[in-house]
């Protein structure tokens, strides 16, 4: 056993403020932070559902039809509706924070935050419209 050289029987009591586990429910701004962090569960959760759909696709027409049937259950639709709210919250908060992660300079001047965030939102709408159009067409 290793001897701790700092240890004395007369150890001072350190001041350690104890944080309650649910510290973040007290204030809306803190709750919003945790809510934003929890969007990642829905992002990964949907990635998993999507992966399972692709797996069913690879297993053949019957397996794929069964998977689509499962997606039609009221519970699945309800869960997807909740998840949609969370993933959209992820997108909105992500694009609003983009200017902080990426300081763009054009001609020596810093591109304003609002422009960077705005371009992200435009890209989001463009991609969404594009994928929707592909689905309608295909």
């Amino acid at each position, binding site marked *: 056993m290793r001897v701790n050289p700092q240890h004395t029987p007369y150890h001072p009591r350190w001041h350690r403020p104890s*944080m309650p586990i649910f510290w973040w429910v007290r204030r809306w701004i803190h709750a919003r932070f945790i809510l934003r*962090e*929890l969007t990642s569960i829905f*992002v990964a959760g949907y*990635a*998993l559902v999507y992966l399972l759909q692709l797996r069913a696709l*690879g297993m053949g027409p019957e397996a*794929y039809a069964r998977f689509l049937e499962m997606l039609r259950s009221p519970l699945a639709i309800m869960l997807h509706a909740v998840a949609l709210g969370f993933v959209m919250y992820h997108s909105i908060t992500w694009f609003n924070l983009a200017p902080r992660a990426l300081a763009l300079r054009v001609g020596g001047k810093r591109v304003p935050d609002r422009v960077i965030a705005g371009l992200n939102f435009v890209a989001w709408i463009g*991609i969404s419209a594009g994928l929707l159009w592909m689905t309608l067409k295909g």
Partner: protein
Amino acid sequence: MKKTLEPFWWSLFGAGGTLAALFIPITLFVNGIAIPLGWLGAPGYESVLQLAGHPLARGYLFLLISLSFYHWAHRFRFTLYDGLQLKHLNFLIAVICYGSATVGTIAAGYTLINL
């Protein structure tokens, strides 16, 4: 986790966050709500298989799914540290989070190669 690995995990987190922010809401809406409710007609099996089987589509699907997992892993890890005050379980949490994202990535690679 070693301090030197942090920028690597962060870059996966950042790339995943961006891909997920741009592509997941519409994908979820179409596949999980609009098609199941009949607002949009479901494309036929063969055409979906053909589209998803295209090499570019496979690459896109792999990145979207895998990086979404790593995005979760990194963010959830810090949520557990900060939100639940589990800082003392640092290493264990990191292994569980990045480990499950890696398992998911392998599963995604396997599924997409065999598509």
